[in-house]
């Protein structure tokens, strides 16, 4: 665990405990489970609904709600720029935002492999708390299970979230039409390369950090201003931008043209991709989104986006076209064309 991280979280110091490691008993539901939760889980994530400590949460919501779930199994659990905790919150928050919703309530479930150090668990919890605050969401219910050593990978987290739809949102695949512009909100491939830089066997030195962050604030601002002109929002996590665009082309039965020269990639990330033999289009992202918007507002939309934090490199990378339905065609830097397909399996590094 990086030392700096621990220092950063001095505002939430770990309580004095009579155990330093999580064992099977902490998932039994009995005394040890309560002890674990009472050490600070409830205190850290405190809110009126969670404080009732009932079997489930009772919520009031407005008319239409969006509902989503996601599981997080990342290895290593601590990586440059973040950890599994904030990833689990931001992931679900962003999925809700992509539906045009304002995220409100989350459930939070841990599956912990026995032997996880309490110090590490605490670190994850603190970043969950901070991520919830940053996104303006509340954890209202949860669960903790512990599995035998070797049956997990330190910690798995599931979050499920609901949020009410933004009144101006009208996001649906069927709204995508010929002429729409495809916009990415910032640099591609940053998260995937940050993770790879610390994977066993691949470690390389860089100051690339994961871009994990909540996108709901930015999306809300854009929906306030552009409402129905935003036809589709997607966050290109696993499989990267290429896979998401292929899915859009397949589902809306139209073609998509993209232009390599307009696709923003940080120079260090680009260099790492070159060395590792990876295509940034297929590398995972956490803190960016793809917007398909009406061409009439595309330039304004991109300018507005650039004014938002962490969106300085927003760019129009392509458009929806009538020709080559269901295919994404990329025009390379040198003007050649090729089809961009979905990622098959994992992107594996090449031999030479």
């Amino acid at each position, binding site marked *: 665990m990086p030392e700096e991280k621990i220092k950063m979280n001095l505002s939430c110091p770990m309580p004095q405990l009579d155990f330093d490691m999580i064992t099977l008993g902490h998932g039994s539901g009995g005394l040890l489970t309560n002890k674990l939760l009472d050490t600070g889980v409830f205190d850290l994530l405190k809110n009126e609904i969670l404080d009732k400590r009932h079997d489930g949460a009772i919520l009031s919501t407005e008319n239409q709600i969006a509902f989503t779930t996601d599981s997080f199994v990342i290895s290593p659990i601590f990586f440059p720029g973040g950890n599994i905790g904030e990833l689990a919150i931001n992931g679900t928050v962003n999925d809700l935002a992509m539906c045009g919703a304002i995220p409100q309530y989350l459930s939070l479930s841990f599956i912990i492999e026995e032997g996880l150090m309490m110090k590490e668990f605490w670190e994850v919890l603190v970043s969950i708390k901070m991520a919830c605050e940053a996104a303006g969401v509340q954890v209202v219910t949860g669960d903790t299970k512990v599995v035998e050593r070797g049956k997990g990978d330190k910690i798995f987290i599931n979050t499920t979230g609901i949020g009410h739809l933004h009144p101006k949102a009208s996001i649906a695949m069927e709204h995508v039409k010929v002429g729409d512009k495809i916009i990415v909100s910032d640099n591609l491939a940053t998260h995937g390369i940050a993770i790879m830089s610390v994977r*066993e*066997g*691949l470690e390389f030195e860089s100051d690339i950090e994961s871009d994990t962050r909540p996108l709901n604030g930015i999306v809300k601002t854009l929906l306030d201003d552009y409402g129905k002109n935003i036809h589709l929002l997607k966050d290109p996590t696993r499989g990267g931008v290429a896979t998401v665009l292929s899915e859009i082309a397949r589902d809306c039965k139209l073609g998509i043209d993209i232009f390599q020269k307009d696709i923003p990639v940080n*120079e260090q990330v*680009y*260099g790492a991709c*070159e060395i*590792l033999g990876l*295509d940034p289009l297929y590398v995972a992202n956490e803190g960016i989104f793809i917007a398909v918007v009406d061409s009439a507002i595309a330039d304004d939309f991109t300018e507005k986006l650039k004014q938002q934090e962490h969106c300085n490199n927003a760019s129009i990378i392509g458009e929806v076209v009538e*020709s*080559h339905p269901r*295919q994404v*065609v*990329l*025009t*390379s*830097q*040198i*003007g*050649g*064309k*090729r*089809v961009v*397909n979905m990622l*098959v*399996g994992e992107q*594996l*590094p*090449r*031999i*030479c």
Partner: protein
Amino acid sequence: MKYVTEFRNQELVEQYLSEIKKITTRHWKIMEVCGGQTHSLVKNGILNLLPKEVEMIHGPGCPVCVTPLNLIDKALYLALEKNVILCSFGDMLRVPGSEKSLLQAKAAGADIRILYSPLEAVNLAKANPDREVVFFAVGFETTAPANALSVIHAHKLGVENYSILTSHVLVPPAIEAVMNDEDSSIQAFLAAGHVCTIMGIDEYYPLVEKFNIPMVVTGFEPVDLLQGILMTVQQLENGEAKLENQYSRVVRPKGNPQAINVIEQVFQVNDREWRGIGNIPKSGYELKPEFHKYDANIKFDVNIKAAKESEECIAGLILKGIKKPFECPEFGKKCKPEFPLGAPMVSSEGACAAYYHFHQAMEDLEAVS
């Protein structure tokens, strides 16, 4: 990014393209030997930019594609039955063995790790003294120095639980095999830039002379490839047959003497089986007798019955450039990257996968539009 962006410069590319168009008077068939070149040609969309008369044929230089079925079965056997930590370069993992791939074996519980360097595998062996660590040493001359170095490294450190399963192949004998095939219609070669970075270019003079064909040692970026193609077409149009070096910023005539020295310390040339092509005399490397204790084949006495290749796969004809991927009846039908019948559909350097991913779909598009 220096040394990358200037070789992807659109203006330069257009100049080379227009020069190629200007001088081409008839149909030419040029083979790019290396899979890395195939990958770059399709990834950058160069095949569609070239005049129709200049036909690029994809050669056997995809290490994953030519690794024999039997050797993959051996790797699978070591990983599944002998409880070794099997380390490999990434794209070897998806190649189908006779029953499964290494990726499937991994899912079934085998301890298989993707590494970027065989030296990492030696470290892994050092850190796990109670386990055997085997590195699947695949590749052309390019990866041979690092693999040889890992053996020297293990030897120096006294790491006894490290060995390599070797499937090293060599480019010049493969070119000879391609030219000797009676169905071959190749008229010139782009020789593999990175292989020549290690080995130098001297081995290619005899081939140029014997087969009276132009050969241009070429790099991998769009500008490199187009300059290499232009130099080749110039020779063809002038009726010349010489060895030229387009990639001189990297390739020295004598190669990298230190790397060659490391190879010669550890390896000796042997006859080798190429998947899809068959046995080619003096076309690979094996460990010298004094390093036999690092030879996984000998250490584990692996005896696997030779399995038969899929009869539907025409990989051999593809690798020799006699057929194009889309001329295979199963291309894109039974054989897709997610269910490959043969290795060329697996690696991104494999001609079939390259066509499937980048090129074939474009031709379909052009046909319907």
